[in-house]
């Protein structure tokens, strides 16, 4: 701020009459009074005892229930989860019993989506492939939530050198795109030799956490100086417990939104890695692997590639839609009345 003399700090400008008499008009001004019955007076600041109590989460839930976006995505996610847990309910055919007699056959009774080049039932493989994709998505999200969440919360809450170090560390990881980083990690001997769902999860977590850390840091930063946090410290709560009891619960909304969307992108990342041959091992049935396997014959038999891709896209779409619906329901701006 420049130090120029402004009317606000110029003592000479302060010399104004000490008392003002108000303005009087020479015109006639009617004195109008509304009849009392038109606007009956209410008690000052009366509590509305009629409405049912609503927590923020209950309020969000009431809002969500009415959103078609949420209903559709929630139903789809439930379906996907059930398919992943008990695939045998949905497909009676064993996806691994393949005979070359059926190689690249079209659809027929009991096999609605036809066969792969190996003669495996496409429908069964799509159903059984759900589990691996979903597991990678869920566990990666949990992993980044734990690492990114803790890092971000500590950095945002305590600030100082911890914040500086974590910010730089985040920058470094940010400089490497998720897929590129995961490719490099998956080449480590320990990873290449023991490829499984878990190696993919670890690789994705390693390069996926900075995003959640940034979001968490921002949300915590917004809340750490809130009056209710200061008030609870003045009540005798230690700073760390104030973080756990007050700051983190109030910072969850944006984190949940981003986590939901990230879950979708992690599933895509797993499929991409598998497609490049650096993700799940061939022994694990997954959409990414099936798409990769179908690639050579995409021109003759596009369905084999199409169906796992459709399943993958619908799953990812439902998580992203869920995130979108949650964002609308948990929007901090809408929360303030």
């Amino acid at each position, binding site marked *: 701020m420049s130090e120029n003399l402004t009317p606000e700090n110029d003592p000479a400008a302060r010399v104004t009459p000490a008392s003002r008499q108000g303005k009087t008009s020479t015109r006639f001004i009617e004195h109008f009074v509304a009849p009392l019955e038109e606007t009956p007076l209410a008690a000052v600041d009366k509590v509305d005892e009629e409405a049912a109590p609503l927590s923020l989460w209950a309020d969000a839930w009431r809002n969500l229930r009415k959103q078609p976006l949420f209903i559709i995505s929630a139903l789809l996610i439930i379906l996907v989860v059930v398919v992943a847990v008990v695939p045998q309910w949905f497909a009676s055919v064993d996806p691994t019993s393949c005979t070359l007699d059926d190689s690249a056959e079209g659809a027929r009774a009991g096999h609605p989506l036809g066969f792969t080049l190996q003669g495996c039932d496409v429908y069964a493989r799509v159903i059984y492939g759900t589990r691996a994709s979903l597991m990678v998505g869920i566990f990666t999200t949990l992993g980044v939530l734990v690492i990114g969440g803790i890092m971000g919360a500590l950095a945002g809450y305590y600030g100082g050198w911890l914040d500086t170090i974590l910010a730089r560390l985040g920058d470094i*990881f940010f400089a*490497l795109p998720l*897929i590129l980083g995961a*490719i490099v990690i998956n*080449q480590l001997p320990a990873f290449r030799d023991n490829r499984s769902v878990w190696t993919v999860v670890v690789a994705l977590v390693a390069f996926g956490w900075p995003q959640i850390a940034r979001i968490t840091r921002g949300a915590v930063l917004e809340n750490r100086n809130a009056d209710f946090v200061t008030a609870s410290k003045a009540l005798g709560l230690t700073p760390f417990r104030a973080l756990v009891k007050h700051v983190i619960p109030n910072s969850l909304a944006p984190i949940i939104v981003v986590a939901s969307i990230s879950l*979708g992108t992690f599933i895509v990342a797993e499929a991409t890695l598998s*497609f490049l041959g650096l993700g799940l091992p061939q022994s694990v049935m997954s959409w990414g692997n099936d798409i990769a396997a179908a690639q050579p014959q995409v021109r003759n038999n596009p369905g084999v590639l199409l169906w796992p*891709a459709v399943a993958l*896209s619908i799953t*990812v779409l439902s998580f992203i839609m869920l995130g979108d619906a949650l964002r609308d329901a948990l929007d901090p701006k809408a929360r303030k009345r």
Partner: protein
Amino acid sequence: MVMFTIRRFLQLIPVFFGATLLVYFLVFATPGDPIAALSGGKPMAPAVEAALRAQYNLDQPFWMQYFLYLKNLVTLNLGQTFSGQEVADVIARAYPVTARLAIMALAFEAFFGILFGVIAGLRKGKLFDSTVLVASLVVIAVPTFVLGFVLQLVVGVKLGWARPTVSGTAPWNELILPALVLGLVSLAYVIRLTRASISENMNADYVRTATAKGLSRRRVVVVHILRNSLIPVVTFLGADLGGLMGGAIVTEGIFNVPGVGNLLFQAIKKGESATVVAVVGILVIVFVVANLVVDLLYAWLDPRIRYV
């Protein structure tokens, strides 16, 4: 402004060292003995093997190797591939292709992303807005490689509008389809970001004040809403350049583009450390420089930043 530039530049130095060290460490710890891989598993004369190790600095301790690598990176002395080509030459051939691809993708996502985002944001809740919103969700949900195959199949093979795969010299016109695929996901993000930013700024107090001054709606939108709304979008576009380079691995694979992504992918599979760290090192430099440019652009768009 000069101070700001210098400070931002200084901040990028640790990021550069950190990221290259991270990659170098990961690649260094990569399996398999590259020398053994080179010989195809056949026994090799110890003298030849030692010479090869010295050539790739594999006989040095890790830290030494890293510093030699940095030195070489700066002097563009990037070593040789296992097949004896100069890494610098290989990269020099592949890089312009990927740069062309990424620039086209960036231009595509910036232009259409901002255009659609602005229209959707100004007409929030209308048909155009809902359509664009749903379309962007679908684009984000479908993996790039699936989109790539579908577009390759439909546009390249079925309709025959473009070559399904790119020829060796990778001219601009053949890169249109791959660039489209590469930029599509980011396009969706740009649309959504622009839209959110526009609709937020539409309710800003200063926009109401601008309207109260008697400005035409057009001027209010162009002068007062647009510039303020573009600030987060510009940041995203800058950061996305790195993402595009990463995404190029998949896209270049599908369309057989002889670019950096392809090169990197092959080198990783072979365990060719010299190429991997050189390419990634250059990617990190590009990313870091792009971020610097974004910061400067940001400061230009938002005068408040310059003095922080």
